[in-house]
Each structure stands twice: as structure tokens, then as C-alpha cells.
């Protein structure tokens, strides 16, 4: 591996990894706070990417505006989903199956509306910059920065804002939080809004870089699994580290061992689940 392909793999890893991180942070938040294994999450990401195509290509909405519109729209969808799942609270298996069914519903409906051919979304940010002698499209830099901004904003919201503190309290100990007068329904709703919104935004962000189709959801969900298990389910920093880690495994692994890289990721996941189910960064 020469230096330029090394830098190339490094950059691809960071770009993919930052998107994985945003998606996984959402999944992890939902699991941590609402105790829901959200199998619809992959389809939420797919909806974001498809909506991105719709706003950027069909309506010609500027990139930043499209991101904000989709973030709010899909966040509202997340609110609906939370309300829908509420009667089943406490029944982990039933919730899991309902989220699977919802995913089927969304994926199949999207297929009827958009068809199943992959679509390319035109580049939104043109220009290149040069780092260490390697030319990088500015678009990739923007994607990574935007993903980092989303994650940072989430971090500050959860650590500093009153509602964020309530969310952390619910994640730690639901009953104790209730005793302190925290409305857990409200916390769950906020988490679903934020998690779905940011995941949808990740879909729009990445839309100009890859092809968009309605089958993105399943692979996104599988990747999210890998990321959250490596980082630890419910762990915020774990989801970020896990996302970047998977990004690197995929970019370097693909450059080095080809298709085996997927097998290696899943083997790592199984070993981790057996040896350290709380993940590399999670706490017991």
C-alpha cells in the first residue's frame, strides 16, 4: 500500500465512519433511553437519503436547507413512531418485532413510490483541497465537518440542556428518574425526535456521494449493529468510536483483503458479544 492509497483509504474511512457514527449515536440513544431495539433505524436513514434526493434534485433546494428540512420532517416521523410503540412498553420482544414490521412497511412503501433503480444525486459542493499532497473533494470535508457538528450538538444537548439531563437520568435509572418527577414519555419522545432527525440528516448528507436507492436500509441497519456492539450499546462515545472504527475496517480492510472485511467485522462482533457484551467502551 503506497502513501497515496493509504491517505485515500484513510479519508474514505473517515467519511464513511463519521456517517456511521451519526446513525449509530441515534440508535444507541434510543436503546439507552427508551430501551427499544430500533430495527426501523436503517429505513429511517434510507428515508433521509431518498428525501435528500427529492429535495436536492427534484426541488433544487440548497444543501444546508435540505438537511434542516429533512431533519425536522424525519424527526416528526420519529415522534409518531414513539407514540405508536408506547402501548407496548416493557415488552422487549413485541417492540422489536413491531419495529421490524414498521421497517418492512417503510421500505416497501418507499419502493412503490420511488421505484427500485439507484439514483445519483449531483454533487452539492464543488472544489478540491490538497492535504499532504493528496487531493480531496471539498464535499467530503464538508460531510465530515457536518457530521461532527451534529454529533457535537447532540453531545452538548445531552450534557448541558435540562431536557438532556432528564434523558440521561432516564437512561441511567428509569424508576429513580420518575420519582424525581421526570416525564419518561416526554424523554422518550425527545430522543426519538432527535435520533430519527439526525439519522435522516446523515442520509441527506451522504446522498450526493453515493447512489441512493430504497434498499439502503438493511445494510445500514447491519452496519449500525456492528458499530453499537463494538462501541457498547447505549454508549455515546462508543457509537462515535465504533463508527470510525468500522469506517476504517471497511476502507482499509477492503483495500487489503477485499470481501473478507465484512466477514471479519461480523466475527469481531460475535467475539465481542461473547467476551465483552458491554462493548469496548461501554460500562457494565
Amino acid at each position: 500500500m503506497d502513501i497515496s492509497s493509504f491517505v485515500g483509504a484513510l479519508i474514505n474511512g473517515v467519511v464513511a465512519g463519521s456517517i456511521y457514527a451519526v446513525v449509530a449515536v441515534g440508535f444507541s440513544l434510543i436503546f439507552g433511553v427508551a430501551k427499544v431495539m430500533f430495527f426501523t433505524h436503517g429505513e429511517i436513514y434510507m428515508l433521509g437519503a431518498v428525501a435528500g434526493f427529492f429535495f436536492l434534485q427534484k426541488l433544487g433546494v440548497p444543501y444546508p436547507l435540505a438537511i434542516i428540512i429533512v431533519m425536522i420532517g424525519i424527526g416528526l416521523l420519529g415522534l409518531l413512531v414513539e407514540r405508536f410503540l408506547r402501548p407496548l412498553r416493557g415488552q422487549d420482544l413485541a417492540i422489536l418485532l413491531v419495529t421490524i414490521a414498521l421497517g418492512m412497511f417503510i421500505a416497501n412503501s418507499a419502493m412503490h413510490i420511488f421505484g427500485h433503480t439507484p439514483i445519483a444525486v449531483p454533487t452539492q459542493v464543488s472544489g478540491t483541497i490538497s492535504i499532504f499532497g493528496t487531493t480531496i473533494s471539498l464535499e467530503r470535508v464538508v460531510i465530515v465537518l457536518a457530521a461532527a457538528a451534529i454529533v457535537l450538538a447532540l453531545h452538548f444537548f445531552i450534557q448541558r440542556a435540562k431536557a438532556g439531563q432528564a434523558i440521561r437520568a432516564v437512561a441511567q435509572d428509569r424508576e429513580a428518574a420518575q420519582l424525581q418527577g421526570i416525564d419518561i414519555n416526554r424523554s422518550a419522545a425527545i430522543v426519538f425526535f432527535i435520533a430519527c432527525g439526525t439519522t435522516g440528516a446523515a442520509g441527506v448528507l451522504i446522498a450526493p456521494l453515493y447512489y441512493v436507492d430504497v434498499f439502503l436500509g438493511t445494510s445500514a441497519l447491519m452496519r449500525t449493529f456492528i458499530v453499537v456492539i463494538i462501541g457498547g450499546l447505549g454508549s455515546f462515545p462508543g457509537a462515535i468510536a465504533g463508527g470510525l472504527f468500522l469506517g476504517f475496517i471497511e476502507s482499509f480492510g477492503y483495500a487489503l483483503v477485499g470481501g473478507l472485511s465484512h466477514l471479519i467485522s461480523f466475527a469481531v462482533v460475535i467475539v465481542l458479544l461473547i467476551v465483552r457484551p458491554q462493548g469496548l467502551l461501554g460500562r457494565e
Partner: protein
Amino acid sequence: MNRQNLVRTTAFLILAAILLVVPIVIRNPYVVHILIMVGISIILCASLRLVLVTGIWNLGQIAFYAIGAYTLTLLMVYYDVSFWLSLPLAGIAAAVVSLGFGYLTIRIKGLYFVMLTLAFVEMIRLTIIAVPFLGAQRVMNIPPPNPIIIPYLLRVEFISKTPYYYLVLALVVITLAVLYLIDRSRMGDILKSIAASEPLCQSVGINTTRYKVLAFVICSFFAGIAGGFYAPYIGLIAPGSFTSWASIMVFLALVVGGVGSFWGPVIGASLMTALPEVLRGAVMYEPLISAAILILILFFLPGGLASLPRVIRTRMVR
């Protein structure tokens, strides 16, 4: 024999008679094909129920189905082993793998086990793709089962679908009989009490881990048998048939039928396998309809379709 038992036995005998003459009366190979696929699905769902009543959320059934299918294929294609020996070996191979996997993982609980088993399905699929000996991406062609020959009396060749139908019928009957005996035995009671409270079982001296692994191994054995039947029946296998999505669908069929009742998986497997065929005109909408059925059942009939008569009866009494 009281009246209710008499009614049940009669109904059972009528059903058995119908199942026996179906391929003779209905000559349509397409219908027979669907019935055979229903049979495979029943084996998968009914054996999966055994681990679910134990409180193990196993979404990895298709991994062991794949192990069975590929074991049989390798034995028949590379080593010319007879189908009739390969089929039990397919089940045993799946059982051995599940013994190792279960021994390592069975203490992992709930949603973590869900993710673990799904990851296992993907790992098996990706292993098949990665290993050229297993056919990799390639489709493997499998010869039909060796003919059954009893001199001067009987000669069965697996050319039409009919012999396959009787073979899968026999496999379904054996599977259900074994599972029924387990369900009604002391072991069945122990498995259900493990789901109710594992610490309590341990406190009365039951080795719960051993029972859980045993249930898992039995379940995987039958999944392996189902895979071993599927491969030569379809005649070709490729890793694309053994996705985590297929594994989830087996689980959904079981839940639709109902885990609480012994006949739940039979109902669920029949409905969910036949549904896409019934909806042939609207096959594009099949996932929407399956999803809607599942959601309705989880919200309004948590015991699955098998609990419907009881729910109606209690409603009527009230």
C-alpha cells in the same frame, strides 16, 4: 373417550387422510410445491418454538438451515454420499455447530442474544461467500435423492414433486411428534419454567444452562434437517437464500402463529408461506400485508392466531 376427544381424533384423522391424498387428487405441481415449502417452514418454526418457550430469543434459525443445506450438498456433490445418509448428517452437523455456539453464548440474554444470532447468520453467509470450497457466490447444483428401491415391490424415483411431498410430510410428522413428546415431558415443563424464572429453577437444583443448550441443539438439528431436505429439492443453493432477513421471517411466522400453543407454529408457517402465493396478483404489496398482519397481531392478539379460539370463547362468556 369423551366427546371432545372423539371430535378431535376424528378431525385429526380426516386431516391426515386429506394430507395423504393431496398430490394424487391435486395434480397441479405448483400447489404441491407450495405445500412442500409450507412443510419446510413448519419444521423451521415448530423447532424454533422449543427455544422460544425456554425464553431464548433465537433469530439465527436460518444459519443452521444453511449449515444443513451446505453439509448435505458437500457430502452428495464432493463425496458421493447417499442422500439417506447425508440428510441425518446435515442435522447432526447443524446440531454440533449449535452445541459449540450455544455453549459459548447461551448465557447472553434478551436483545443481546437477538443481535448475536443475527450476526451469526451473517457470518455463516459471508463464510460461504468467502470459501471457494463451499461454492462461494456460485450456485451449487445438487443431485436429487437416491431412489428408494425395494426389489419386486417398490421403486421411488425423485423426478416429480410427489415423492418430495411424501418425504417432507414424513419429516414434518417426525419433527412434530418428537417436539410434542418433548413439550409434554418433564423436560418441556423445565424449559417453560426456565423462561418463567431461571433463578428459581437453579435454586431447586436444575442445571438451566444444560437444558437451554439442549433446547438450542434440538432446534438447530431440525433446522439442519430442513436445510438438508431443501437443497436437493430445489436442486441449487446459493448464499443469497440464507440471509438474516430470511431468519427474521421464520421468527415472524412463529409469532404470527403463536408461541404459546403447540400448533401455533404450524398455523403461522402455513399462513406466512402460503400468503405470498395467494397474493400472486399483488406480490409487490406482500411485505406491506405481512407487516400489517404482524402489527395487528402484536397489538391485539399477543398470543398469536392459535390463541384466537380461546380469546373468542372468553369474550363470549363475558
